[in-house]
């Protein structure tokens, strides 16, 4: 597997960014949680201390000291919070009157405010939260809470947060690693295929799994590769064709001329050889032009070369061009179908495609058969259909008819070069349509399907009728 340099891996960057985002989220959540638990606890303890001290002070103001002492005794022995409560009443002299503190701060004590001080409570040192109030007849009242329990709760919360943060961090790192790994795995599949194709295995394709972004990208790339392979095959076919179908007649012409030069002594004989050579070269030019035409059609067309063309007009023109040829071969040629069938395209290319189909139909349907030319205009598509009722083509041969230089055995006795349908197909594809060949039983039904265009406002088609002046 090709390695990704760490610093230039988009997967790593994405994973790290994602991890940082998660860490920030955990931090914020922990903060909110911490202040929501420990902070609330602190405030509730403070509230209790203040309210108890207020209540005791109020009680003492109205009644004798003895009742306050009794009250504090009750508080210390009622079993409610008695392990954390702190109470102390001192006389003006500073001695303890009642309470559970054996040592307490006396110096620098602001009264009426919450303080944190170290005390000795029930013989044990403890941190306390205290409020000190002055009694009206001298002496002080201490009310407070031991903070030990709060400390341990705080520690517990901290600990929980630490564990949670550690687990989250591990999960983030693991997730990032998985994320990166997954990305790398998917991309490396594509890269591996690309390397293999680069090395010459044009038939390799990216394995598709699932229906995610990578699967869709892989599908697109595979489609592109199919197209490239198809074009490459086309090029290969053409070069094979050039090797065979151009070289053979060239060789023939050359041999004929060579022979004439060595043997022919009469002008007539030489002239005859020259004429044969010219005929041979003319055939070669025809073949060459057809190959060029396919190449041109397959390489696409500039948009400005497109014009609105009326297919029904093309079909009737071509029908009239071939009517005499059909008559000669005892084939009935009939033109019918919709008028005003418009598409965007190149008039001459489309006309030559139609001519080619008619030519084939007349040639292969045979004497006594019927050839029908029809045009249809659908909502999205328009069609030119050339149907004959001749012997037709075996179904298994149909897909091969549009291959360059493919000729059925039966067709080899007829003049032709096996390029006709390949060109028609290329022309149809060029116009965003297709050539459909179907068994019509009997005969063959060849349709050129093209995207429909709206009829022009003014019938510009009239401009195409040439003046028959000499």
């Amino acid at each position, binding site marked *: 597997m090709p390695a990704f340099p760490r610093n230039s891996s988009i997967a790593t960057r994405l994973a790290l960014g994602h991890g940082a985002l998660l860490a920030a989220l955990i931090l914020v959540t922990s903060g909110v949680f911490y202040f929501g638990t420990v902070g609330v606890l602190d405030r509730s303890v403070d509230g209790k201390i203040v309210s108890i001290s207020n209540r005791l002070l109020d009680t003492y103001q109205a009644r004798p000291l003895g009742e306050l002492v009794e009250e504090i005794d009750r508080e210390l022995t009622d079993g409610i919070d008695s392990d954390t409560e702190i109470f102390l009443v001192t006389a003006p002299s500073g001695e303890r009157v009642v309470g559970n503190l054996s040592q307490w701060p006396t110096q620098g004590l602001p009264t009426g405010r919450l303080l944190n001080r170290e005390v000795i409570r029930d013989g044990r040192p403890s941190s306390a939260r205290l409020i000190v109030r002055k009694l009206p007849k001298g002496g002080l009242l201490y009310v407070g809470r031991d903070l030990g329990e709060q400390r341990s709760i705080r520690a517990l919360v901290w600990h929980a947060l630490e564990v949670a943060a550690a687990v989250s961090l591990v999960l983030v790192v693991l997730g990032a690693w998985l994320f990166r790994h997954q990305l790398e795995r998917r991309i490396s599949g594509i890269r591996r295929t690309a390397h293999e194709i680069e090395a010459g295995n044009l038939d390799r394709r990216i394995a598709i799994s699932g229906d995610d972004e990578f699967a869709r990208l892989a599908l697109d790339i595979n489609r592109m590769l199919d197209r490239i392979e198809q074009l490459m095959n086309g090029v290969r076919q053409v070069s094979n064709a050039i090797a065979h179908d151009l070289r053979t007649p060239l060789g023939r012409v050359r041999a004929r001329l060579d022979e004439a030069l060595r043997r022919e002594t009469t002008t007539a004989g030489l002239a005859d050889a020259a004429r044969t050579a010219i005929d041979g070269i003319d055939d070669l030019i025809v073949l060459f032009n057809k190959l060029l035409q396919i190449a041109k059609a397959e390489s696409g067309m500039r948009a400005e070369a497109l014009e609105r063309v009326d297919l029904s007009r093309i079909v009737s023109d071509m029908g009239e061009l071939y009517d005499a040829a059909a008559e000669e071969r005892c084939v009935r040629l009939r033109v019918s179908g919709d008028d005003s069938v418009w598409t965007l395209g190149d008039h*001459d290319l489309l006309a030559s495609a139609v001519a080619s189909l008619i030519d084939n139909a007349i040639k292969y349907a045979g004497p006594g058969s019927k050839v029908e030319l029809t045009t249809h205009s659908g909502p999205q598509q328009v069609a030119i259909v050339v149907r004959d009722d001749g012997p037709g083509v075996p179904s298994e041969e149909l897909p091969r008819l549009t291959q360059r230089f493919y000729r059925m055995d039966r067709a080899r006795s007829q003049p032709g070069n096996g390029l006709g349908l390949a060109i028609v197909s290329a022309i149809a594809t060029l116009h965003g349509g297709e050539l459909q060949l179907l068994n019509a039983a009997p005969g063959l039904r060849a349709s050129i399907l093209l995207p429909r265009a709206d009829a022009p406002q003014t019938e510009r088609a009239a401009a195409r009728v040439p003046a028959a002046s000499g």
Partner: protein
Amino acid sequence: MKSLVIEDELETCRYICNGLKEAGHCVSHCDNGLDGLHRSLNESWDLIIVDRLLPGGVDGLSIVGKLRDLGKKTPVLIVSALTSTDERVRGLRQGGDDYISKPFAFAELLARVEALLRRADPAQVRTQLRIADLTLDLRTLQAVRGAVPIALQPRELRLLAYLMRNEGQVVTRTMLLEAVWDCHFDPQTNVIDVQISRLRTKVDKGFSPALIHTIRGVGYYLGERS
């Protein structure tokens, strides 16, 4: 006929010039665009044949364009290896009178040249064409041979009219395809031959003399001499 051939490729130039001389033209030639431009503008010609791609910084199309800009109506035949429809259309838009693709047969070129020169004649508007005892009335679209009316389909009428207008001149299959069927590609079968032979059956069969003649390897002409 005084003709100027502007063509840089020596062999093609010789081919055209020799052929034209044999056909009775007085031919001059230039082998680059700049000379071609000077001579075509500064001398008077009956015909100019120009290649599209030329050395010397001036291409064939700009020579034609310049001629037309200056209002010169000299017939121009463009010869080019750029054979696609839009290239041909560009050549004609620029002011060329006809366009022929390389490689070509000289007979094709000559037929086109002669058609151009005839076209340059002041056009006579004729409503009736008459050759020997064959008459074609262009208003009523009636063809009559001797006293016998000949039934022709519309496209056959156009074909006959074209042949009669070019009486005694050779017209090639390509010229017929373009003029009669508006077909600017080569269907590469004998469709035209078959059309002509059908027309011949209607026009010549049972009449004398035969009017429609075939020139092997070139095309056809319509006329009294055989």
